[in-house]
């Protein structure tokens, strides 16, 4: 669904009020945020190390193995979501810490952080849900809007979607290479790649090599007598993390009511229009504090898209204010429970696997 835009006056006052929310949150950023992220990092480190031990204890009782796998998955989720994603967005750059900053941080996932920062922070966050510009929209694999022509492969895209979810870290790792047509396809004409194609390829292989070495060679070999049990445990932990992150991200952008935009609509847009597009292209998940933390606060996808470099622990508080401002300006604000939102994602994937015939009538356009 593409969407038209509210009046200039509405958008202007909307912009002012969103700016005020941002300034208010920025003025509160300080010691509590530094203490918080350090606390999360300590938990992540402790879980990472402890889980390796507990997995090995699986030879005593299989429940140890299960617990260890869950702990390792949890460590990876914390590292990728609440720490890595947010730190690499520059949310903690103000701390001036040698390790907790977007320049130096690297995460425990197959995707090279530098590559991810290039396409995610710039492309996805600037051109959110603009068909043809935001490659995160369906990842070039799924048809999630009738602006994209139907092809036969879309018929079984629910299977593609499940595969993408299970292998999500490899998808994220390969994303920029796919855009640049490094291994397949015709070379991209309008490439803005700031490094050479060779360097991109080298960074890709270097990072996946390190990750494979760590989880599938080093740790299993180190615990040699239980080699297979450790290997299997690490595979499972990575799968759990993949499934979780992919699911959260799909709930953030591909719920039934998330809108898409055309390139023309977004030319010369004001800050207010940009805010508006971010809000309509995203959806929130409601839940307890632990749930927000495990999603890296991407449960507040709307606020993350409005304020990508404000420390994410402020999002739930800001969400209440943003929702009110939206209500006052007649702008839809999509928020719901995890279960409900996920159901609409699955519905969307299924619906667009069939060619366009009903589509347009069911979604309100503005």
């Amino acid at each position, binding site marked *: 669904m593409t969407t038209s835009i509210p009046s200039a006056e509405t958008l202007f006052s909307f912009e002012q009020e969103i700016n005020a929310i941002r300034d208010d949150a920025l003025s509160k*950023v*300080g*010691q*509590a*945020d*530094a*203490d918080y992220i*350090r606390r999360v*990092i*300590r938990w992540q*480190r*402790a879980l990472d*190390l402890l889980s390796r031990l507990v997995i090995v204890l699986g030879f005593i009782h299989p429940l140890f193995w299960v617990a260890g796998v869950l702990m390792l998955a949890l460590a990876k989720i914390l590292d990728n979501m609440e720490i890595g994603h947010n730190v690499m967005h*520059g949310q903690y*750059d*103000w*701390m*001036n*810490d*040698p*390790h907790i*900053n*977007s*320049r*130096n941080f*690297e*995460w*425990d996932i197959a995707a090279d952080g*530098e590559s991810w*920062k*290039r396409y995610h922070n*710039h492309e996805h966050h600037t051109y959110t849900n603009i068909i043809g510009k935001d490659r995160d929209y369906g990842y070039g694999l799924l048809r999630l809007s009738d602006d994209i022509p139907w092809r036969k492969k879309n018929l079984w895209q629910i299977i593609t979607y499940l595969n993408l979810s299970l292998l999500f870290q490899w998808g994220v790792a390969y994303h920029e290479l796919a855009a640049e047509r490094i291994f397949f396809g015709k070379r991209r004409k309008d490439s*803005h790649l*700031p490094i050479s194609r060779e360097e991109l390829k080298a960074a890709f292989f270097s990072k996946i*090599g*390190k*990750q494979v*070495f*760590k989880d599938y060679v*080093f740790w299993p070999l180190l615990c040699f007598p239980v080699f297979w049990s450790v290997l299997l445990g690490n595979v499972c932990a990575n799968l759990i993390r993949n499934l979780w992150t992919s699911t959260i991200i799909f709930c953030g952008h591909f719920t039934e009511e998330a809108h898409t935009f055309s390139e023309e609509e977004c030319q010369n847009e004001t800050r207010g229009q940009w805010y508006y597009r971010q809000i309509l292209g995203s959806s929130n998940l409601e839940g307890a504090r632990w749930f927000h933390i495990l999603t890296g606060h991407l449960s507040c996808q709307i606020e993350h898209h409005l304020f990508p470099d404000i420390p994410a622990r402020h999002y739930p508080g800001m969400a209440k204010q943003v929702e009110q401002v939206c209500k006052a300006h007649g702008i839809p604000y999509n928020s719901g429970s995890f279960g409900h939102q996920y159901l609409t994602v699955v519905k969307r994937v299924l619906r667009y696997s069939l060619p366009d015939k009903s589509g347009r009538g069911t979604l309100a356009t503005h």
Partner: protein
Amino acid sequence: MTTMTDSALSPRSSRPVPRSQRRSALRRWLASSLTQHDRFAAYFEPLIQLVLPRWSTAGWRARVLEVRTELDDVYSLVLRPAKGWSGFNAGQYVEISAEQDGRRVSRIFSISSSPAYFARTGLIELTIRVQDQGRITPWLRQHFADGGLVSLSAAQGDFVVSQSTAPLLLIAGGNGITPFRSLLQQMQREGSVRPVQLLYYARHAQHFLFREEFDRLLLDMPQFSLTLLNNEEHGFISAAHIRQYCTDYAARDIMICGPTPMIQATRSALSELAVDAAQIRFEYFGAAPIDMQRANASDTLVAFKRSAINADIAAQPAQTLLEVAEQAGLKPVSGCRIGVCHQCICKKESGVVFNTKTGAYSDTGSEDIQLCISVAASDLILDL
């Protein structure tokens, strides 16, 4: 604070890569593979600090024992560095960092006490003037009044006394007295007989630091002489002052420390007196000034490659690349902002930069530069 001898102005020296760095390539690969950090210690640091709060991968921790008032707007921090801190030479400086509302801030200060005092007591002192509207100097005084922990770098700088036996002339402006206090204390401890004269400038007669200590030194060290000159009464430094108060200046090794205008005035006075530049050492109190000719580069373009941002900058007023980057909305990691701590090091892909600290122009090719002391002298591409 930046230290220079005039020989440092000669062609730039590239920093050599230590051999040990190459040898540890495998360990680095292992660390980055297993922990996503270049060093294992960096990954474990948050856990280690739970047990050993003073343990750190960056520099050493030091305990603040006392904040001693010297004048209304000048105080000394008395610090006990952690074991393993490598000591210093009189005249050197350290960087101290502390966390201010979650943000790590750092400043560079000369050590105002002597190495001999450190050897005896394990303590060092930093004497600090409260900057008007400063963010850090007033805060340090308040925040550490009841003690606390700061991070400390190794001592750095080559503003140390020359090896010769030639008599010394020390010229201090305001708080620039601090390295000289260290140096004089050390000479006294070592029983040095080297003649030394101190020309000490301050704003008013009430603004001289360490008066009683210097009076004691005068009794202890017959070869030491002290001239106190306050700007109100005597005006600023000039060639006439030097001729009047230190007749044998031509035979002396000269060390200057103070604010930038005072150093510039002193250097031009000395060149007026035809003093050989090789005899002179000086240390800026703050960042080295940007004074450069940019006749044929009216506008330059700085491309921040990683962020895909281009900044068009006018020639006047000259800005450091750190300022340019920050105005473009980037937040590069930075520290001292005066070219000492090397935190804002960034890879320059191409273009020429002017280094305000060394006064040298860079090569055109790819190299690491410090953003806070680099000014664009041509179009640039930065890996930022």
